[in-house]
């Protein structure tokens, strides 16, 4: 076993004839004011091999990749490609050096066609449509994908978009491919597809760096694993070990490396990586039905997903999960229940009465809460203080406003209490919310929605982008709410998370509810099937 910190991962590879790494980072250091994002990181990737880069959010993965793709310059350290030292001074230089990058967020221009997106940044003045189409055919064949090159990017599905992203990353004679959390928006089948694609790429001699925060993915997909923590490379797994040792043993070792000796025993590997065993969830909910949807449809228009004829009920104290690949109408459904969006058909009843005609404030008063998935652009106003953000859903109401005038003391005191209760790290309640870290902004949202006697809370991707500790905190909160008799809906793309917290899990596909599964043995497989319906 070689999860010891002194192994740099640059040791001789197990593969014959691959002694020179395709890319080698030596002592990469990047310091931002107040934080060391990367602290003398050494890392190598070899041709025909997948290097899994594992770490929590904030471990320094993104900074490292920004350095490799030329977006950011390191303060110290060097980059070597095929044994030669290079300076990746700009994204253009990175492309010239054969480094291709598939970003976590999509980087296609929605108004351009697939082919135009691929030709973006090509050197020649007049575009070479014929040559590009040929090249596109070659790459698509290699990946085994089927995409119309003349389709406008905004009309493609997420899976297709990601394939285009990969084609784009390979477009210019790429030898080193970086994939940043590529599985985050794929179905389980999509992940298998991606693995198949990566195998083909490996066979053609491309070196792949695969970034993930999921432990099991790193060791399943990677031929070699490096672990980042707080900006440093704290350990890794060599190919020989990956092949010879049992997965459970490797997992335990990695968890120890990431969270300190003995934490694997202490909390169980499962909790640390949120991958509980199936069938362990035993909880019977007998409360009355509190929320009932009957035949709810939402018209998403041209730009957004629609919802068709969705019916389900949630009991008091029950946690209902909604699974599905991003963009299948989950957000629109949540917005419809919260009152942000009109429904075109059907009815929503809450505690026995129809609420379909009520707006957000009225539903708020009844106890309906919605923790949005977009905390920066929808949930909070980043240039307003933590205190003001805490009361944004109660504008004009006592005790924060009296006779039409704001009462800053009341708001500050209220916010201070929540900041303490939720352990939000902020210099003061007067600090602008936009300056906080993602995890702390999420806590602001949780605090706001959980205050004032909630009766139903909808959580949309509640742990997305959070570090393990905060994510675990959020899941505990969700369970506690349900114990108190509050109805909870959790929307997530991460099956593991749903299996960990929910009583029942509904599956959405193309705006329809394709089925509801009781959480228990075999749930995971049935959910996977329902996603394809």
């Amino acid at each position, binding site marked *: 076993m070689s999860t010891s910190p002194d192994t740099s991962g640059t040791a001789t590879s197990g593969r014959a004839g691959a002694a020179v790494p395709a890319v080698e980072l030596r002592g990469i250091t990047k310091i931002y004011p107040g934080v060391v994002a990367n602290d003398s990181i050494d890392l190598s990737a070899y041709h025909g091999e997948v290097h899994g880069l594992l770490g929590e959010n904030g471990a320094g993965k993104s900074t490292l990749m920004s350095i490799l793709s030329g977006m950011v310059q390191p303060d110290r350290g060097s980059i070597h490609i095929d044994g030669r030292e290079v300076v990746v001074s700009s994204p253009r230089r990175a492309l010239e050096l054969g480094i291709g990058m598939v970003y976590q967020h999509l980087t296609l221009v929605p108004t351009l066609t697939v082919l135009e997106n691929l030709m973006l940044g090509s050197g020649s003045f007049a575009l070479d449509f014929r040559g590009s189409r040929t090249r596109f055919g070659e790459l698509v064949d290699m990946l085994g994908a089927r995409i119309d090159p003349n389709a406008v990017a905004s009309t493609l599905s997420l899976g297709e978009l990601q394939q285009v992203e990969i084609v784009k990353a390979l477009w210019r004679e790429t030898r080193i491919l970086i994939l940043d959390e590529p599985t985050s928006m794929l179905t389980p089948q999509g992940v298998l597809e991606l693995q198949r694609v990566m195998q083909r790429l490996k066979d053609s001699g491309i070196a792949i760096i695969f970034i993930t925060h999921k432990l099991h993915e790193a060791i399943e997909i990677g031929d070699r694993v490096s672990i980042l923590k707080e900006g440093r490379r704290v350990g890794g797994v060599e190919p020989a070990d990956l092949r010879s040792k049992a997965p459970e043993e490797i997992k335990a070792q990695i968890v120890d490396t990431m969270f300190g000796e003995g934490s694997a025993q202490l909390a169980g590997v499962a909790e640390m990586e949120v991958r509980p065993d199936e069938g362990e969830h035993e909880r019977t909910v007998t409360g009355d039905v509190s929320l009932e949807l009957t035949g709810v449809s939402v018209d998403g228009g041209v730009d957004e997903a629609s919802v068709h004829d969705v019916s389900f009920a949630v009991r008091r104290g029950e946690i209902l999960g909604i699974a599905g690949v991003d963009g299948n109408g989950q957000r629109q459904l949540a917005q419809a229940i919260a009152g942000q969006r009109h429904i075109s058909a059907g009815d929503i009843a809450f505690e026995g009465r129809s609420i379909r005609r009520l707006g957000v404030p009225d539903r708020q008063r009844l106890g309906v809460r919605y923790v949005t998935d977009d905390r920066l*652009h929808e949930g909070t106003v980043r240039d307003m203080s933590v205190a003001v953000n805490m009361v944004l859903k109660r504008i004009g109401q006592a005790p924060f406003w009296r006779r039409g*005038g704001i009462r800053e003391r009341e708001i500050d005191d209220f916010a201070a209490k929540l900041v303490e209760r939720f352990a939000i790290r902020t210099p003061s309640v*007067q600090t602008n919310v936009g*300056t906080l870290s993602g995890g702390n902004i999420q806590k602001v949202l949780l605090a706001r929605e959980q205050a004032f006697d909630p009766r139903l809370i909808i959580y949309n991707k509640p742990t997305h982008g959070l570090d393990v500790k905060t994510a675990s905190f959020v899941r505990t909160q969700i369970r506690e709410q349900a114990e108190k008799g509050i109805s909870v809906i959790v929307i997530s793309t991460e099956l593991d998370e749903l299996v960990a917290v929910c009583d029942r899990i509904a599956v959405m596909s193309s705006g329809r509810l394709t089925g509801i599964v009781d959480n228990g043995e075999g749930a995971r497989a049935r959910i996977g099937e329902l996603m394809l319906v």
Partner: protein
Amino acid sequence: MTEVVSSPPSEPDLETQPPGRRPLAWLEVVWQAILPVILAVVTSGILLAILGRNPFSFYGDILDNGLLTDFGVQQSVVRMATLLLIAGGLIVAFRANLWNIGGDGQWLLAAAFVAGLAPGVVDAVGGPIGLTAMLLVGAGVGAAWTLIPAFLKAYHGINEIITTLMMNFIGINLANILVKGPFLTDKPGVPRTDILPLDQRLPLIGDPQIHIGILIALAMMVAIHITMTRTPLGLRLRVLGANPRAAVHLGLRPKRLIFIAFAGSGALIGMSGAVSMLGDWGSFRADFNPAYGLLMVPLVFLARLNALATVAFVALFAVIQIGGDTATREADLPTDFILVLVGLLLFFMAVTEFMRLRRIRRSRFQAQAESST
């Protein structure tokens, strides 16, 4: 679909962090306001010297004629009343991130209506009622002229810059049509409306005598400031401006807010036109267009949409405009020289603002780094 990470210009919301809570904030604000003035004055001074004029006597003339003589003070304060109401109107819209660029059309149309109707109405119902009614007519016309842009923005998402700009041109032409048609005076000379007799205009106060427009304007600015900082409506408008998606999420009824912000903006600008006609000009002359609206756009933005800071900026501009009028004539320069001075002032303000934003971005980044570790 692909999430476009677009956000309104990252203007830190001053009013959620009252300057009083931050040490030295006032000093910073004052320095921020004075530095560009000094730079603009020096640069224009050099320009003057190149043109063979004495910069010191030129600036002396501006001060003299804009501030130090009775007549100058009188003129400056009267101008200030007009400009303040426009600026207040722009603040209301800009706070909600609605770019009402068509202020001049709203102003002129309101002014034309008021000038056309006032002589008859005031004569018939008497001063107090007549003048009040006329102020309301001005506000109503201004507000009405924003209805179409508000509707197109709220229901069809059509960019308000383009619609207010078009309504601006229509408003300018329509004002002229009114003045040359239904509101045309019988008196010979240039086409204009009937003149409102001096003794029927807005009441005068103080010494030197100034009409009460300035009181109306200052009261409105205070009202705007209180509304924006203390009331639910103000916070709703600011949320809409800072993050329209959050406004939907919070259930603030954004469509209604768009109408309210536009109507409020148009009403204040229209009232400015009314005050200008009722207190100052007394009659609307065809093809009259002082284009105050456009001038106020960068000004209020650089005052960071803060109503109180705007008062100071507008006072400065009024003095420069009034004093500059005489000063340029004395120096045998085209009056447009004042525009050069104003343009330079705006540029230097913008650059100072750039330095400030860069500082804020740095400290924001630092705070972010600290809170995430």
